[in-house]
């Protein structure tokens, strides 16, 4: 079976500063991978480069997603192809309600896939069902997108978007940061509900605890823009105990 995501020797940077230095990673359909790594090691950069944010130069390597090269695709084309990024810092969009945003997003993606847009009533039903499952009340759908949302509410809202869009590959960039224990469980349930044999997840986190709720198949350690070690769930436990000293040292010497 071919990989859902295959990153090979990726080099990327911004304004001439290299950040990703030969990163390779492969996710098979059905797998959940976790990336852990010190601050500034390039985890968010990887998520942005994968989702097509402007300003990053990819100088070497390739990114294949579901058999397509991501390199020349616009961010919206990647979203339509089934890539989803839950942002580390979700944006606030004043004057646009959460509901309008969700509907515009879902319909843009359906349209992009050549499917029929969802009518207002079915959309409302779906949005209510998904938001309730995440412990969000209907009021939050009527509010302006992320404006005045607490840190945890913003993260929950990212998961709501994921639940609505049902991506093939979800990249969660520190979705657990800022969540209380109950919210963490709810969010993890939301993520687990989406696990399927044809889907994959890339979970970026600093805390082993999230991985108690979302069981990863593979854990990677990222340092200085590369994957420096990969292993099973036990690797996360090890990191929790001994930190990154070993890996940071190794890359400095390399």
């Amino acid at each position: 079976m071919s990989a859902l995501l295959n990153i090979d020797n990726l080099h990327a940077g911004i304004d001439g500063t290299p950040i990703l230095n030969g990163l390779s990673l492969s996710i098979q359909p059905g797998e959940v991978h976790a990336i852990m790594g010190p601050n500034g090691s390039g985890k968010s950069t990887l998520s942005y480069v994968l989702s097509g944010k402007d300003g990053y130069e990819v100088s070497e390597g390739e990114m294949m997603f579901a058999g397509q090269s991501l390199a020349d695709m616009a961010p919206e084309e990647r979203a339509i192809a089934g890539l989803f990024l839950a942002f580390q810092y979700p944006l606030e969009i004043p004057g646009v309600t959460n509901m309008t945003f969700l509907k515009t997003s879902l319909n843009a993606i359906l349209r992009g896939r050549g499917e029929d847009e969802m009518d207002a009533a079915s959309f409302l039903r779906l949005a209510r069902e998904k938001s309730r499952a995440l412990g969000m009340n209907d009021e939050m759908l009527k509010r302006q997108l992320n404006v005045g949302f607490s840190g945890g509410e913003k993260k929950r809202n990212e998961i709501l978007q994921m639940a609505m869009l049902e991506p093939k590959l979800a990249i969660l960039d520190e979705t657990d940061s800022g969540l209380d224990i109950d919210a963490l469980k709810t969010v993890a349930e939301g993520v687990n509900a989406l696990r399927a044999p044809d889907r994959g997840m890339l979970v970026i986190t600093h805390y082993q605890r999230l991985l108690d709720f979302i069981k990863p198949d593979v854990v990677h350690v990222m340092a200085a823009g590369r994957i420096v070690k990969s292993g099973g769930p036990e690797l996360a436990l090890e990191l929790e105990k001994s930190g990154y000293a070993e890996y940071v040292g190794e890359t400095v010497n390399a």
Partner: protein
Amino acid sequence: MLDAQSYFDRVSGDLSGDATARAAALAAAEAAGLPTRRQEAWHYTDVTRLLGKRTDDTIGAVDFAPLNPLMAVFDNGALREAPVAEGLALHDFEAAPIGDNAMLNYNAALAQGGLNAEISGALAQPLIVTTQGDEPVHLHHKITLAPKAKAVLVDNHMSCGYTNARFDITLGADAELTLIRVQQAGHQIGTSQIELAENARVKSVALVTGGALARHEANVAFAAAGAHAELHSAVLGRGDNHADFTYVIDHQAAETSSNTTAYNVLDAASRGVFQGKVIVRKDAQHVDAQMQTRAMMLSEGAEMDAKPELEIYADDVVCAHGSAIGELDKDALFFLRARGLDEASAIYLLVAGFIEQVLSHIDDEVMADSLRALVAQKIAAQFSIEGAA
């Protein structure tokens, strides 16, 4: 009105009222001439130059029908349709005296008429004053709300010609007025004098989507305690549009408050001007005056001039002003695109959301929706988006 004298000679025979008084007003206006940039209040708006400009703005129909409104339609200055309703009395046109404002003196000399309305009680339907046509028009409206009266007034400017409009708006004690203004094209110099008695409340929401010259001047006087004014404006500038909101907010009495916001989205070579002067008179204690200007610059050729001013003579007041001028938020744009929206649709949503922060001040959702539809139509045309939500 570049050659006002010959225009006056031609039309004065058709104008009602005291011809001598009109001639005197014209003489006073001509002595001062059209405002120039040397005058502080006109520093950013070069009237003579802008009057010579044309834009290709189109007039989109705003659908007010669901509001079942009372209509006063001025077609090239002539009243074609007059409203009839309980609580609404229409009086004969009254000429204005000569003052020190040249535009108002031109108006006094040349006014073809206007709505002289007295509102008592709560008007059930909104009153829409539509100005349409393509000829030069001078109108002098007088809207008086009796104590406790309540009304929604729409200044619906649909002309593509030149308009000099004067609005004298007086609110009695506890009266409440929502004032909606829309300008889509043409040249308009509008001057509103708004007087608020005790506990009177006015909320103005203005939307400019086009025009070679849109000058909206408002002078608000708070005569007694409890008076409150909100002045919100949204500008959607494209091409050579020029939109100028100039206010004098005069807190003459203690315990009065004002809240002013100006939101400008400026594309191409359009220009937005905001001048807001807040005066708090001596002894006008406990005044709360807030002023916010925000601009979203979509092009390097666009320009925003924001000049908030505070003149405070009382010591126990809360006054603040802020100004934020920036470009389209690149991170927000990426966020929306990462959720499947193409670039044009993402820009559409960001611009509509920006303008919505002004439209959301309109309490009547049906009214707000009719303006939202106009904004949607204008943005979609500007960014060539089909079927934008």
